[in-house]
């Protein structure tokens, strides 16, 4: 069972960070102008408007999602550039996680297109998107319950490993070496995200809450992503833990050249590390720009606190 089409794997290995950014697909570049009424209402704050630039790592264009009569996401344009830290904020029920689920292939958008590394992934399966280099964590931690921390991370490396049925049965030297390397790498990743060595072989669900979130990040990193999606990584963390998390996220960007997209309610984390903040409300993008500018935007204040007067 050699899993992924080789072109995906090669493409993923070939590029990290900004230099090798692929050109987006032709249809994505044409959408520089905002489309439709839905985005008309989105105020762009600060310098950058939503244009699908040539160097976009991830570009969503006019993406909508409808669940029956519920418009969960309406005509959202969204871009993540290589090596950037982008944040999505918004009140509960604004559609942030739904948007994440569309980016990672768990939901298919009702309309609009999503382009990742120059390829249209609107209809792609989650595992294909993951193999292309987009990896994620979950809002409600979803570690594999009966697996140790190391094994969880090894699952994250599934698409990067090649051991098939026959090789696994006969445990060929190649498979054995791969397994060994995979385990060593899993331990490195766990250490990198700050899990003490002595917890590596414990069941992941028995680790502390903050550590579980970190194991999820390590698991996501195991697939060598170029874009990491974090869904409320600081949820349930105390101030010192979330400071450590901010440092970790920044380090991942600086050292590994990752682009990071996070959903977060902890404004301290968001304001600290984001290059760019996007605000969702009722499934629409209501503001976007640099953190300070977004914070001052009256529409954002209204979404969070209600109308004044």
């Amino acid at each position, binding site marked *: 069972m050699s*899993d992924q089409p080789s072109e995906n794997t090669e493409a993923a290995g070939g590029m990290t960070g900004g230099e090798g950014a692929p050109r987006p697909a032709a249809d994505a570049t044409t959408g520089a102008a905002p489309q439709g009424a839905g985005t008309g209402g989105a105020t762009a704050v600060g310098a950058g408007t939503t244009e699908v630039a040539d160097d976009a790592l991830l570009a969503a264009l006019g993406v909508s999602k409808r669940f029956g009569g519920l418009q969960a996401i309406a005509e959202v344009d969204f871009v993540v550039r290589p090596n950037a830290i982008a944040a999505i904020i918004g009140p509960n029920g604004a559609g942030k996680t739904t948007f994440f689920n569309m980016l990672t*292939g768990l939901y298919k958008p009702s309309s609009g297109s999503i382009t990742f590394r120059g390829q249209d992934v609107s209809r792609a399966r989650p595992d294909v998107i993951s193999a292309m280099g987009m990896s994620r964590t979950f*809002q409600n931690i*979803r570690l594999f*319950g009966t697996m140790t921390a190391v094994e969880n991370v090894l699952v994250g490396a*599934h698409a990067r490993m090649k051991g098939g049925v026959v090789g696994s049965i006969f445990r060929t030297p190649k498979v054995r070496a791969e397994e060994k390397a995979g385990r060593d790498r899993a331990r490195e990743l766990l250490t990198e995200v700050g899990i003490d060595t002595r917890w590596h072989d414990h069941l992941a669900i028995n680790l*502390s*809450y903050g550590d579980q979130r970190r194991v999820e990040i390590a698991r996501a990193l195991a697939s060598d992503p170029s874009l990491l999606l974090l869904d409320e990584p600081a949820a349930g963390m105390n101030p010192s833990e979330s400071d450590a998390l901010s440092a970790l996220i920044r380090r991942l960007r600086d050292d590994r050249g990752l682009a990071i997209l996070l959903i977060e309610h902890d404004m301290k984390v968001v304001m600290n590390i984001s290059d760019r903040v996007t605000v969702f409300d009722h499934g629409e993008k209501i503001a976007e720009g640099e953190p300070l500018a977004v914070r001052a935007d009256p529409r954002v204040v209204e979404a969070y606190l209600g109308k004044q007067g």
Partner: protein
Amino acid sequence: MATFDSVMQRPVGPRGMTVSTIAAIAIVAFAIVFPLFFDPLSGFLGTSIQALAYVVMALGLNVVVGFAGLLDLGYVAFFAIGAYTTGWVMSGFYGEANIHVFVTSTVEALPGIHMNFLLVLVIAALLCAVAGVVIGLPTLRLRGDYIAIVTLAFGEIIRVFAINGPEIRPFGENYPLTQGKQSITPIDQIDLPFLEPLNSILSLRGYYWVILGIVLVCLFVVLRLRDSRIGRAWIALREDEVAAASMGIPLVKTKLLAYLVGGAMGGLSGAFLGPFIQVVNADQFAFSFSIFILAMVILGGLGSVWGAVIGALVLTFVNNYLIPDVLNGVPGALGLDFQFSDLGFGVFGFLLVIVMILRPQGLFPERRRAIELTEGLDGPPGGPPMGATPAPTTTRGEA
């Protein structure tokens, strides 16, 4: 504290072999000499052979249900396909054809299709692997109970095909699919290369060693797969399908592979039981047989390889030895007017209830489940706080 490694790294005995390696060698050695302690035709030996054949099925079903978490209620289908394979290519059923492949002179003279047993094993495993994929395909979009319903239906479809087989003649008038409720018999005795053909009228020992060999091969395959990248993918799938897909595990391929491996093992077992029982007919493949095998897997401990072995041995001996031979006279001796064997399934049900109450993880639980239970008691300090882990729920509509 029970860490995974402390359980993984077993105590080391002489010459650097781990104690469990020595134990495994001892058990295998005992299993090999076991039939020498019995009369070559004893009924107990016959029951043991049947038990080992069911071990193979339990190992296969455990891959599907225990590892990958796909509840399969139609496993009897693979028994049927495997057994009918022997009916087709290892008997005089198709008397018009005269095909002989690597068989000894005794069989060579007979009409029909007669192939060497090893070849038949391969054919049966391949047919069942294909059937496994066929049953897998419609269940790919389903979860949990719905998979169970579809697989149950699949088992019934195969049985109905077997019953109506005499009317199904895709390859010509003289080639019906089955003999329906009438038996295809006799099936050729097992004939291995370089050995005299086995003869179950003189001795059952040969049959015992053949099925023991099949058990050991399947055990090896299942253990190796469990501890590989593939096994991790199956278990991840069982734990959380959404997370598994998001981590790059292709769901379709991984599920189909589980069905394929599980089905092939059912086929091997069926292809052995054909020549052993000497009879293949549609009545052998009732739904209750699927439950019988599933009960073995659950009794032993879902997902546990050794559990499947133990569960299969225990239930077969309860079913074939304890109930008919030992307990059957008890009600009569007490002045009651029924036979204990009438209660067969009642006894299984009772056993399962007892096990589920006293030992819900099964007789011989999967190692990782065992740690889950022990670690819950003396887990690492500082975890899990804050109401512990949220149950994996669907993220739909969440934001």
